[in-house]
């Protein structure tokens, strides 16, 4: 497995692109499937993912999980929307790669300091040019409008930080629930979920627990309910 450096990634596309480039692969579905594990492993380990972009990381994760599912289960078919989203992801990566390269060139061009300057001396006129169409009421409206558009001191990140439950927390929660009830349907675990991201986190937590052999899962039909069971004896990790 590719050893992930402990650097801060500018979003999931940055990480994904770096994983692909590190293995000298082209941006294809096959290579995306290939690096999916590394990507997920990075998210699980990396506590330093900017919380502001955690939701973006998780949404990309869910797409990669989809790709993995397809690789494991050849009869698994993508819906048209999933198909489009994957196509879109690939396209975005190709675009992002182009812009990463070109932005380095722009950076180098800036270092040359081949700067053109304009004449911006202060001039004063003897006469004043008063615009005809301004009233004090109008000036007030304009100013109040500007004030409303000033971004609050926030960052979106702070909201996300409050709302998104971390993967670890979720695992603890899920373990707890399963301990108590031994067997649980996936949809029950996400009943309390407040967002898509929450569902994705739960799903990731479930995958993590499968890997740690804490649970196993069963799904009797496609899109059917996923049953999570606590492992009493060591058994194979993947459900059928």
């Amino acid at each position, binding site marked *: 497995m590719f050893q992930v450096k402990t650097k801060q990634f500018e979003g999931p*596309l940055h990480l994904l692109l770096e994983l692909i480039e590190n293995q000298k692969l082209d941006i294809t579905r096959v290579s995306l499937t290939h690096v999916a594990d590394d990507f997920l492993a990075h998210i699980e380990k990396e506590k330093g993912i900017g919380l502001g972009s955690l939701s973006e990381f998780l949404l990309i994760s869910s797409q990669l999980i989809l790709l993995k599912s397809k690789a494991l289960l050849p009869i698994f078919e993508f819906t048209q929307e999933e198909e489009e989203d994957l196509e879109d992801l690939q396209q975005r990566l190709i*675009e992002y790669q182009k812009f990463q390269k*070109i932005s*380095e060139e722009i*950076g180098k061009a800036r270092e040359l*300091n081949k700067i*053109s300057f304009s004449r911006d001396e202060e001039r004063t006129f003897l006469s004043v040019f008063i615009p005809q169409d301004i009233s004090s009421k109008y000036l007030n409206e304009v100013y109040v409008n500007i004030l409303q558009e000033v971004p609050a001191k926030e960052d979106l990140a702070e909201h996300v930080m409050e709302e998104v439950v971390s993967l670890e927390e979720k695992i603890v929660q899920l373990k707890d629930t399963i301990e108590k009830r031994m067997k649980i349907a996936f949809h029950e675990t996400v009943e309390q979920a407040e967002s898509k991201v929450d569902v994705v986190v739960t799903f990731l937590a479930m995958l993590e627990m499968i890997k740690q052999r804490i649970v196993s899962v069963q799904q009797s039909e496609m899109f059917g309910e996923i049953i999570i069971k606590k492992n009493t004896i060591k058994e194979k990790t993947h459900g059928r």
Partner: protein
Amino acid sequence: MEDNNRSKVEAILFVAGDPVGVPKLAKFLKLSVFDLNNIIEELEEFYEQQYSGLQVIYKKNTIQLVSRSEYGELVAKFLKKSFNEPLSKASLEVLSVIAYRGPVTRAQIEHIRGVNCSFTIRNLAIRGLVDRSDNSADSRSYLYEASCDFIKSIGLKSLKDLPDYDNLHIQEDVIKADKVEKKKNE
């Protein structure tokens, strides 16, 4: 007579200092935009042939007279102005997307980079490397494009002189990004 027009245009651009709208200047000089464009081209060629200390830059429908970019460091030293400040990797990426794809919305930029860019965009706008304008198609968002100061900071004549501009300028993803934006707003 034409020579006369060339030097008239030069004098006006010199005194204006700031970018001047081509249609506005054409109207003022009682010329067609086509003729004025020819005169500007002539002025450019003249500057190139004579290796003048001046040059013309274009942005959209405006032109501006500026100092020759080869003398950037010399002129900066004379004016005691700082050279280009280094930009972070993130800023350079956002700036590139805006320069090649502008006018673009924030959602379109974020679609390409896969991450929230509002603060980076704001910083670039405050530095004056990016211009912001109202989006007539959606009053809740703005459009961003590279500014004249950006063009001047890397000594270009216009954005079209950016490396591989024609290729990268084409906006394949815009429709998709609009879709994403709509989803977000739902």
